[in-house]
């Protein structure tokens, strides 16, 4: 946001006052297009077109299908994670909840003899409970979410591994494992998991961008004290967001189990980092208060497209990790680098007119 505003600076020669209204001083199309989110969408378009034309077999019928199957857990969890990060908190425990829910689905189905839908429901509920525990500690006890969720990351994963050891539950009914891999329309490249994802996306979009609750979420991220005084229930908002994240992670765990047909304690290890990478790549500020869902979806799909394109080019997963890591670092440093560069330019300009200019730029 700040980069385009500051690039406007050259037009006004006078020492500008620090107080500007960047979002509404520009026409609508510039506000919509000159954003971090749109940069990610554009990058996704470029990478997709490039892969489509240059990477052999990328235009094949299976590419998109597997791409969506693979990134579905990331896409799902990225929705609540976006909101959690916008409030300025973070949830590192989601991947462990995925693992726990996966194990529960397996154990409840095999040992307790529950049918898959019931087991899945219990798993989602337990996911919500895990989230509620995080939320309680963060929102009501007031502990830093980073520390809390590092603790529950180990705790939930430990319970998952403890329940099942190194064994795996397999042998789920074909009906359900097929459902996880089914396509919406036979022959299309859109897997069935996109249906719940789109519903979730609609819900989250409404919640974050078109509801009072969502405005509160942004406000908390910008200044939770101010949010408190404008009547936002900061604690309750944070609490429910963690519950939301836990429940969605629980659902992702069920999907993960059925998709691969095996419930293991170490399922989805390290997924939390991929989710956070996707969210941050999508332009959500880790400081909170900034971000939009279309950027996050684009960020997650971008990671998926890059991975599948590189895999088709016979690159190893290691190189893919490097590229994702570099992208993440570049995307977060680019804004501050641009701000720094234009701040430097502005500072030099101001230095000519006034002497005491540099003090404010630091």
């Amino acid at each position, binding site marked *: 946001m700040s980069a385009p505003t500051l690039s406007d600076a050259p037009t006004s020669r006078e020492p500008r006052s620090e107080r500007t209204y960047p979002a509404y001083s520009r026409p609508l199309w510039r506000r919509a297009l000159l954003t971090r989110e749109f940069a990610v969408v554009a990058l996704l378009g470029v990478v997709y077109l490039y892969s489509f034309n240059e990477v052999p077999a990328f235009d094949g019928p299976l590419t998109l299908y597997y791409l969506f199957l693979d990134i579905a857990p990331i896409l799902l969890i990225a929705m609540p994670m976006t909101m959690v990060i916008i409030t300025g908190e*973070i949830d590192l425990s989601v991947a462990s909840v995925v693992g726990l829910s996966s194990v529960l689905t397996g154990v409840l189905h095999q040992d307790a003899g529950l049918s898959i839908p019931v087991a899945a429901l219990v798993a989602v509920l337990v996911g919500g409970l895990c989230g509620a525990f995080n939320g309680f*500690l963060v929102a009501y*006890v*007031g*502990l*830093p979410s*980073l*520390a*809390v969720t*590092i*603790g*529950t*990351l*180990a*705790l*939930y*994963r*430990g*319970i998952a*591994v*403890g329940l*099942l*050891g*190194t064994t795996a539950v397999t042998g789920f009914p074909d009906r359900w494992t097929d459902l996880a891999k089914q396509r919406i329309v036979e022959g299309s490249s859109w897997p069935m998991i996109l249906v719940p994802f789109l519903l979730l996306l609609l819900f989250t979009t409404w919640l974050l961008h078109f509801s009072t609750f969502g405005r509160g979420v942004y406000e908390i991220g910008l200044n*939770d*004290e101010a949010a*408190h005084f404008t009547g936002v229930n*900061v*604690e309750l908002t944070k609490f429910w967001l963690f519950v939301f994240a836990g429940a969605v992670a629980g659902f992702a765990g069920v999907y993960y189990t059925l998709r691969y047909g095996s419930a293991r*304690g170490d399922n989805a*290890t*390290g997924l939390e*980092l991929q989710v*956070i*990478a996707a969210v*941050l790549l999508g332009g959500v500020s*880790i*400081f909170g208060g900034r971000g939009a869902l279309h950027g996050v979806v684009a960020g997650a799909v971008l990671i998926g497209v890059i991975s599948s394109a590189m895999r088709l080019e016979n690159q*190893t*997963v*290691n*190189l*893919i*990790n*490097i590229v*994702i*890591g*570099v992208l*993440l*670092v570049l995307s*977060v*440093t680019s804004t*501050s*680098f641009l701000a*720094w560069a234009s701040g430097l330019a502005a500072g030099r300009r101001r230095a000519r007119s006034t002497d005491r200019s540099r003090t404010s730029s*630091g």
Partner: protein
Amino acid sequence: MSTALVNDPATPTRGARGTQLLGALLRSRELAVLVVLLLIVLGTTLKSNGFLFSSDGFRNLLVTPSLLLLLAVGQTLVIVTRNVDLSVGSVLGLTAYLTGRLFADNPGIPVIAVFAAGLAMGALLGLVNGVLVAFGRVPALVITLGTLYIYRGIFLTWAGSDRINASDMDPGFLALGTRSILGIPVLTLIALGVLAAVGYYLHTARGGRELYAIGSDPDAATLYGLRVTRRVLVAFVLSGALAGLAGVVYAARYGTVSSGAGSGIELQAVGAAVIGGVAIFGGSGTVWGAAIGAFLLVTINRALPIVGISDFWQRAVVGALILAAIVLDRVLANRQERRLREQQGSSAAEAAPPGPDGPPVPAGPTDPTTHHDEEARA
């Protein structure tokens, strides 16, 4: 955050009594973890004598934590400045592989050179983190998350399906992993030496005290004229170098380096620091606490199977411990805050009549109170 302010041992202006009180409370924090550690060792030893009294058991008790201890010490340096370094696991893997590669490619290379190479490599990787964090003005969490991917990717690309075995390495180097001096394993001595040096630096050196100041309030530190950028950079370089050293130690201890080396250990390092009383929002905590935390984590892992809990539950116990530690921190901080307010309330009442040198006194009470309100809500 306010914990950081209140806990900070770097505020000597509050008068001798206050400092003593703070000191005592801080000591008790580390003492508490130490007591838990000793209880665990005692309990496990009662269950099985070999845990402590067999020569092997005693050695393991000391050697196994040395790796995590190095990482936890480095992590403390970074966390104290209100940052975090998640890339240490990848740095460890990369330097462990570098160590093996150096021995495999240059037979007869002196052990000292390998240690130097590991340290230099780690410091370089830490420098990259530090430059990005300090100049990019981006939270360390994000940057080091990115470099975690990048470093591990580099490690795996470099290593491929290759695997370093004990036969590739210098026997003299591997002997470091088993040799002891005066009954204390060499690797533990290395770790303790590092601990002592960093502990001394943080406790007394100006640079170390500045790290606490930066973590307590970065803006205030900048206004005060501290070289925040440079100090943070140094903290990351040190953390990287210690992770590099840990990589060399890893190679010496285990003799093999496979692609999984060090993966996931970064969270253990953060966990050890947190358990040892290092506040995640900076400005508070000591390396002694982090070191005890590291010992505790590793010892619990080894003790659980002996007392009959399947070692699959280890991670759950570790998680519960981390949570318990931060909750305990909060409780202690609240109690301490209340005590400080009472104390300052009375001293402010006494100091009010004389008047002229008022400013420092009111500055004290307002500070914790405002923070307390903020925190009570948050």
